[in-house]
C-alpha cells in the first residue's frame, strides 16, 4: 500500500528521484515524523483548517464522526470501512491515506520523470514506512523497475526478516539504511524494535557487498550526543560496503500530522536540530574516512 508518490526529490539519493512511500512500519519510533506511514491499513486524516463544515462525512460516519465544539470528532476505532470515506469530503479536509496501486500503475507514474532521471543520474527511491515489510508485490515492482532500466534505492530500517530482504536482492542498486543506535535497550525503548535483527541483516548485506549508505536520524534525547554518534559512526566505518553516511537532523514538521490523525505525539516538546549542531558528527565521520553529508 502506497501513501504518497513524491516527484522531484533531490535529497534522497543520487540525482533527481521519485520517492514511493509505502504504508506500514514494524517500528514505532517516538520521534517519527511520518505518523501516517506507521499502520499497514488505511488511515483517516482530518485537517480542521480547511474544513468547510459541509457535513457529508457525518452523514456517512455517524455516530463515529460528529461535530463538537472543537470541530470534528472522529472515533477511528469504530469506523469499519475507511475506504467509504475516500471521496466524501469535497474540500479534502477529511482524506483517506493509503492506496493500493498495481505495479503497472506505479510504473506509469514513475516513467513520467524518466528523462529527468537520465539527465541527472537519478531514479526511484522506495521509502515508507518500511518498504521491505510489504508483501511480495514489492519484489515484482522492483523487477519492473529494473526491466525499465531505472535506478533503485530503498530506504529501510532493516527491521524485517532476512527473507524479506533476500527476495529483493539483485534488484536494489542502493540500500539507504537507517541506523538509529548501537545500544539494544535504548533502541527498544524508543522504537519498540529489536536492534539485533537490524544488526544481523546489516552484517549480511555488508558481506554480500551490497551498496549501502548509512542514514542516521539525529534525535534529541535519543542519540544526539557525541559519544552515541561516535558509536554509530564507528560501527558504520567498520563495514566494508559503507563509504557514505548521511545525518538527518530531527525536525518538527510532523507534529501537525499527529493531530490530524488523532494520535498523540510523544516528541511534541522537542525542538528541531540545526545544521550547525551536526558539525562535530560530520567531522568525526570524515575523520573515519566516510563521505559525510547533512540530509541526502
Amino acid at each position, binding site marked *: 500500500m502506497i501513501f504518497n508518490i513524491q516527484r522531484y526529490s533531490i535529497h534522497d539519493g543520487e*540525482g533527481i528521484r521519485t520517492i514511493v512511500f509505502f504504508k506500514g512500519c514494524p517500528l514505532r519510533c517516538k520521534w517519527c515524523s511520518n505518523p501516517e506511514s506507521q499502520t499497514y491499513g488505511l488511515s483517516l486524516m482530518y485537517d480542521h483548517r480547511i474544513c468547510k463544515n459541509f457535513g457529508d462525512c457525518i452523514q456517512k460516519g455517524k455516530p463515529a464522526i460528529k461535530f463538537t465544539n472543537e470541530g470534528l470528532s472522529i472515533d477511528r476505532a469504530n469506523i469499519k470501512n475507511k475506504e467509504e470515506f475516500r471521496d466524501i469530503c469535497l474540500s*479534502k479536509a477529511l482524506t483517506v491515506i493509503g492506496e493500493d496501486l498495481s505495479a503497472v500503475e506505479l510504473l506509469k507514474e514513475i516513467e513520467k520523470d524518466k528523462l529527468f532521471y537520465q539527465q541527472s543520474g537519478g531514479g526511484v527511491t522506495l521509502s515508507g514506512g518500511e518498504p521491505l515489510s510489504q508483501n511480495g508485490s514489492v519484489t515484482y515492482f522492483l523487477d519492473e523497475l529494473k526491466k525499465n532500466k531505472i535506478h533503485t534505492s530503498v530506504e529501510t530500517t532493516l527491521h524485517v526478516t532476512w527473507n524479506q530482504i533476500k527476495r529483493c536482492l539483485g534488484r536494489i542498486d542502493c540500500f539507504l539504511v537507517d541506523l538509529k543506535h548501537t545500544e539494544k535497550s535504548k533502541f527498544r525503548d524508543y522504537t519498540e524494535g529489536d536492534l539485533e535483527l537490524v544488526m544481523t541483516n546489516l552484517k549480511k548485506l555488508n558481506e554480500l557487498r551490497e551498496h549501502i549508505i548509512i542514514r542516521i536520524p539525529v534525535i534529541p534525547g535519543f542519540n544526539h550526543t557525541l559519544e552515541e554518534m561516535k558509536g554509530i559512526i564507528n560501527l558504520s566505518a567498520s563495514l566494508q560496503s559503507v563509504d557514505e553516511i548521511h545525518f538527518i537532523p530531527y525536525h518538527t514538521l510532523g507534529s501537525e500530522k499527529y493531530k490530524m490523525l488523532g494520535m498523540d505525539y510523544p516528541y511534541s516538546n522537542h525542538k528541531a536540530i540545526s545544521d550547525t549542531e551536526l558539525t562535530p558528527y560530520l567531522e568525526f565521520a570524515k575523520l573515519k574516512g566516510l563521505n559525510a553529508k547533512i540530509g541526502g
Partner: protein
Amino acid sequence: MPKLEDKMIEIKESKKISKRIHTLREKVLRAKPSVCTERAKFYTSVYKEHEDKPVIIRRAFALQKTLKEMTIFIDDGELIVGNHSSQLRAAPIFPEYAVDWLPEEMDDLDKRPGDAFFITEQHKQELLEIADWWKGKVLYDKGRALMTQELRDIHDTAIIKATGNLTSGDAHIAVDFIKILETGLSGYLEEIKSYAGEVKGYNQEGIRKAQFYDALTIGIQSMSAFIKRYADQAKYLAKQEQDPGRTRELETIADNCTHISEKPPVNFHQALQLTFFIQLVLQIESNGHSVSLGRMDQYLYPFYKQDILTGNITDDQAVELFENTWIKLLSINKIRPWAHTRFSAGGPLYQNVTIGGQTTEGMDAVNDLSYLILDSVGNMKLTQPNLSVRFHKNISDAFLMRCLKVITKGFGMPAFNNDEIVIPELIKLGVEKEDAYNYSAIGCIEIAVPGKWGYRCTGMSFLNLMRVFLAALYDGLDTRSGKTFHKGIGHFNNFNSYEDLFKAWKHQIKYYTRKTVEIDTAVDTALEENVPDILCSAFVDSCIERGKTIKEGGSKYDFISGLQVGIANLGNSLAAIKKLVFEEEKLSKEDLLEAIENDFTGEKAERIQQMLLNFAPKYGNDNDYVDQLLVDAYMEFINELRHYHTTRHGKGPIGCQYYAGTSSISANVPSGSVVPATPDGRKAFTPVAEGSSPTSGTDTKGPTAVFKSVSKLPTDRIMGGVLLNQKLSPASIRNDSDKKKLISIIRTFFADLKGWHIQYNIVSRETLLAAQEDPEKYRDLIVRVAGYSAFFTTLSPDTQNDIIARTEHFL
C-alpha cells in the same frame, strides 16, 4: 582556445563594488520618480510651427530640438554619460501618443497604489496647456477612430486590450549594434546620402523616400550634436575639477564623446558609451518599452579583447563600466496611464541584454564578457537590464552554475531562453540560418533577430481567453457587458456532450481571433501614420535601402504576436466540465452556471466550487487529460491565426505573419479583474493564471511535472513566448549539490522537452510578507513579476498578493 572549464577559473568572480558605483547606485535607487515636461514642450512647439510638413519631417525637427535643447548633465563619478530627462528617473511626456489621461490622472499620480510619480503644480499647468492643444490629434484618438464601433466596444469591455500600444507606441525591438559599432554615425550619413542620391522624385514613392532620407539625415546629425554636447560638458567640468583623477576621467569622457559623435569607437569604453547613447536616443524618440540591447557579449567582445591584449583595460574596469551602464539604464524612466500600468506592474522598461547562446557556426558563444556581464548584473541587483541567457545543449555546467549563483541572489535574473527550440523554428519560418543563430531576447522572453526584425515580436493585443470561454457557455453573450458580440451555437444548458462545448468554444475563439487582428491592424495603421520612428528605422536593416520606416515595411523580418491571457484557467475549466458534468455527471449544467453566477457564495455554490477545485485535474501536474484539452482548445486559436497577415504584408519583409504568445507580463491581475467566476473554481475578478504557468497553488507535483505539462503546449507555434515562472525557497538551493540538480532539470526541460523559457524567483514568503509590512526597509527588494523583474514595494497590493500566492516549490 582555452576550454570552458578553464575559462571559468580564469574569470574570477567580481564581487567587489567600487565606491563610485556604490554611490551612483544608491543615488538612482533613492531618486523619486517624477515628471519632466521638457520633451513635451519641444515636441509641441515644433508640431505647432511645422503643421504643414509631413509627419516624418515634423518628428525629425522635434527630435532635433529636443536633443539640442534638453537639459543635460554629468553626475559625479560617472564614466558612462547620458541622461533621459532633466532629472534622474524623471519621466518625459510623449504628448503625441496620448493626452486625455493627463488631466484625468494628473492629481493622483503620486497617490497611485503602484508606480507613483511626483509632479509639481507648475508642471501640471504646463501639461494641461499642452494636452489642450493635442486633443484629437494624438495616436490614441486616431487609432480608436480607425476601429469600427464593434471593435471599440470589444476593446472597451476589455475582452481584447490594446491600450498600451495606443498610449505608448511600439518599440519591442533591438537595433543593429554590430553595424553601428562598425560604421559609426558618419557611416550611416554616407549610406543615407548614397541612397538618397538615387531617389527619383517624379512619383509618389520618390517624394516619400526623399522625405524619409531627409528625416534620417536630420536625425543622425542631431544625435551627433547631442553627443558633442556631452563632450563640451565634460570639458567644462574637467576645468572646474579639483581632483586630478576625476579631471582625467572627465577628459576621457570628453575625448570619447567627441570621437564617437561621428566616428566608430576604437576601444571598449567608447563602444559601450556609444551603445548607451543609441539606447538613450531611442528611448527619447519613442514612448515604447522593451527597447533591447541584443547580444552585448558578442558585439562588444572584439573591443574588449583588443583592449585586454593591449593592456588598455582590466576585467575589473570592464565590470565597473558595465555596472555604470546598468545604473544608467535604470535612470531611464517612462510614465504610463494607470490603465496600462496595471498590465505591466513595477514600471519596467524591459531593456533586455542577452548573453550566451551559440555562434553562427553552432559553437558555444559564451565568452569572457558573458561572465563579466553576468557578474556585473548580479552585483548591481537592479531591475534593469533584464538579463537573458540563451541556453543550448552544449552550454557548460560551469557557466550555468555561475548563472545560478546570480539567480540565488533572488532578484529573478538571469532568465533562460532556449536555442534548441528557437533556432530550428525560426529557420522553419524562413529566417536565414545566420540570422536565426543570432537571435536575442527582446523585452522579457520574446525573441527577434536584432537589427533585422520589426516592432513587437510580441505584445500586440491582449486577448482575455476566459471572457471568450464564458461567451461560449452563454450562446455568445458576454455576461460582463451584457452584449452579444458574436451569436453562439447554443446555450451550455442545452449542450449534450463535451463536443458541443468544444464546438461553441471554436465558434467564439475564431471570431475573437479575427477581432484581435482587426484591432492590431487599426493600431498599426495609426502608428505608421502618426508616430514613425526615425532613428530606430535608420538602425534596422533594410529600412535605409528600401527608403521606408519599419512600420511601412522597412525591416527584413516581420513576425508578431499578441498575448493570450488565462491559459491554465482555460485548460482547467474544460477539464472540470468534461469530467464532472459530462463524464461523471456529478454536477448538473444548471447548477454549475448558477454557482458561477453566484460567485460560489452560499453553501450549494461553495460545495460546487470545492468539487471543481479538488475533483478535477489541473494543468501543471503532468496530467494528460487536462493538458491535452488545453492544447486542443489553444490550437483553435493558433490555427485561426494562420489566416492573417500584418499591415506590412507584400511591402518587403519576410513573414508578415502572426504567431501565438503567452508572455503576458503582469496582465494576469488586471485581466482577471474583469472576468466573472470561472468553471475551474476561480472566484470572480481574482487574477487569472500568469503566462503559461499553472494556476497558483494547483501545481502540487513539483517542478518536473510543471515542466512536462508546459512542454505539451505547441511551443513551436507559440513563438511569441511561453512564459514559465517558478518560485523557489532559498532553502531549496543551499549547496552546490542542490544547484547541480537544478541545472540538471533545466537541461532536461530545454534539451529534451524543448521548453521555451524559465525564470526563477528565489525569495522566501516571509521576506515578501515582511516587505509588504515595511516597504521602506525593502526598497531594493526585487522580484520576478513575469518576464521581468520589478521592485516589490512599487507593486500594487493586488500584484504583491498574487506573487506571494504563487506556489513555492521546495526542492
